[in-house]
């Protein structure tokens, strides 16, 4: 690891808030990766006997006051089919089993299994309740995390590639290439962001299968994001281009592409890392907003955005608040963690940071 990067990492470790945020994010991505295993049911698995079922409490003490070695839930029965209220049946404790066989899934393409972390022998357990179709909210949250959490990373990766390449080329080449790229970026920046989002979305068909929708969202967010980044990279490239070590590299016979990739762009990296981390919440919220509107990831596939979209009706808000609270909490924690990590990285990578002397 290069010297400034190591120094930044140590500075980051000393920042307790930022390292906690990094651990939270790490945990979230692990949960998303193991999602189908941790989820008791498939994201689109409907239970017609449990529409709008509230979250179930895992219990250790039964009605007679006996302590159980492993948690259980009570069987429930629909009490009022108009209000969707359920009552517990204390006579029928259903023990939660660990590592049960259930619906088959693929963790990765080709890695198939039907083993789930927990489940019941018969009937269903809904720790975070069910949605209007009786689908398990916890399962949808975990499946949705796979989409909502990766959209940010894939989107930012494409944006960085585009921004570095186009900004670097514009700054290094100058002339009409520079002028054309900068006019294009100005154009994109002159349209208010969410209006541009809608305009770009309108270039795709109204309904998209989940895979295509994912790609479309990533493409849309990257097209919006590259312009601002490329303009900064261009400015930095123009400044670095005139330094002596670039002249030295050129004198030693390095071609423009090699100079750009090996000598100029690496010097923009600490800026780029901070800019990327700070930008990720925007990408996650972009997916959430599109799916919330019903034009992003569409049912029956789950994403945090379309889960939030289910919570818009007055009925849900007054009677089934977990449908709002669960995805909202997940989004809030993720966005907050990225913000705090971004702030910490900015402090750690800032060459004028206190006590660290000059980086680079």
């Amino acid at each position, binding site marked *: 690891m290069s010297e400034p990067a190591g120094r930044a990492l140590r500075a980051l470790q000393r920042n307790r808030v930022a390292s906690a945020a990094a651990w939270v994010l790490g945990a979230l991505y692990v949960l998303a990766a193991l999602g189908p295993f941790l989820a008791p049911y498939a994201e689109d698995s409907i239970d017609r006997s449990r529409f709008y079922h509230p979250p179930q409490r895992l219990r250790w003490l039964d009605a007679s006051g006996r302590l159980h070695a492993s948690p259980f839930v009570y069987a429930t029965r629909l009490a009022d089919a108009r209000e969707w209220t359920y009552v517990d049946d204390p006579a029928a404790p259903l023990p939660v089993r660990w590592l049960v066989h259930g619906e088959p899934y693929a963790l990765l393409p080709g890695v198939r299994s039907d083993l789930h972390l927990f489940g019941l022998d018969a009937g269903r357990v809904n720790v975070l309740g069910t949605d209007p179709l009786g689908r398990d909210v916890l399962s949808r949250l975990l499946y949705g995390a796979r989409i909502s959490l990766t959209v940010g990373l894939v989107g930012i990766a494409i944006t960085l590639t585009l921004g570095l390449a186009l900004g670097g080329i514009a700054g290094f080449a100058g002339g009409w290439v520079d002028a054309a790229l900068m006019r294009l970026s100005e154009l994109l920046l002159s349209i208010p*962001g969410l209006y541009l989002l809608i305009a770009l979305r*309108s270039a795709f068909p109204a309904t998209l299968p989940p895979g295509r929708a994912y790609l479309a969202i990533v493409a849309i967010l990257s097209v919006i994001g590259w312009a601002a980044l490329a303009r900064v990279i261009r400015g930095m490239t123009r400044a670095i281009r005139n330094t002596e070590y670039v002249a030295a590299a050129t004198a030693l016979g390095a071609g423009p592409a090699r100079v750009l990739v090996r000598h100029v762009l690496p010097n923009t990296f600490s800026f780029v890392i901070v800019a990327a981390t700070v930008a990720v919440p925007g990408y996650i919220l972009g997916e959430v907003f599109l799916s919330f509107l019903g034009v992003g990831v569409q049912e029956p596939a789950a994403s945090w955005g379309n889960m939030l979209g289910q919570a818009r009706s007055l009925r849900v808000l007054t009677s089934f608040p977990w449908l709002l609270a669960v995805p909202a909490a997940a989004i809030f924690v993720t966005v907050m963690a990225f913000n705090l990590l971004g702030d910490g990285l900015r402090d750690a990578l800032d060459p004028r940071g206190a006590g660290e002397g000059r980086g680079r």
Partner: protein
Amino acid sequence: MRAFLLRRLLQAIPVLLGVTALTFLLLQLAPGDVLTTLAQNPMVSAETLDSLRRRFGLDQPWYVQYLLYLRNIVLRLDFGESFARHQPVFAVLREGLGNTLVLATAAAVVTWGLAIPLGVWAAARRGRPADRVLTAVASASLAVPELLSGLLLLLFAARSGWFPIGGMHSPGWERMAWGARMLDVARHLALPALVVGLVPLAARMRQMRSSLLDVLHQEYVTAARARGLSERRVLFRHALRNALNPMITLFGFTLGALVSGSFVAEVVFAWPGLGRITVEALQSEDRYLVMGAVVMSTLVLMAGNLIADLMLVVADPRMRDV
């Protein structure tokens, strides 16, 4: 001044041409054309479709269509027809923009009306509990996405019943007396304006606080204190005036964000503004309306920036030669 204005207006032309060309291109990429949705309606005859096709030049190549579209905007402010709403696009946009400005203005009043006093208060109490609490609340508010604060306030409205959930008017609004109408709109306005204003409020408060703290460290303030003036008089008569200057500049810069800032709140609270209209147009594949809304929002953004620059020129004579 006049040359400055003229130059800025001329600079706007290529940008607007680019924006219209870009939105036009994007809609060409989508499958079908503006009439696709209409064509699925069995009530619409083939003859009607043909005549519409001729009227909008859809039988022509794309560049002719684009020039036709531009010509209609420039000559007649004709942005095409909203087929989902059976109204000219311009009429829909004008109404939406008006509603958006009502919301944005209310939010701006909340933002600035609270941010200045709170910022001054925090600066005057620097380091004490009041300042710490305010600064912490402001930092936390900055991180809350509008979609979440909006939905939470919607939940609050639904559960408490104190506020209407969404929309701009209650049923029967047209028959109300003038005062009752105002009150009704204000009740509908409260929560969305809070959502729009929350993040800017936190940001402006922090800026006001730091601006005032900067001024309070200057020598003339120390001199005023040394002359035995009361702290109150030093703060309000001497420090505050200078601390407000950067805030006026900031106010200008936020004019451009006036229209785009309320987008999410409009969608969540069903406020019939430009943002909500755009989303509905996307959902109903009302293409001329999508294009018109994008062009309109860009125009408003540019106008806001221009007004901000003009305010700067008026406020600071040094800017006049730039």
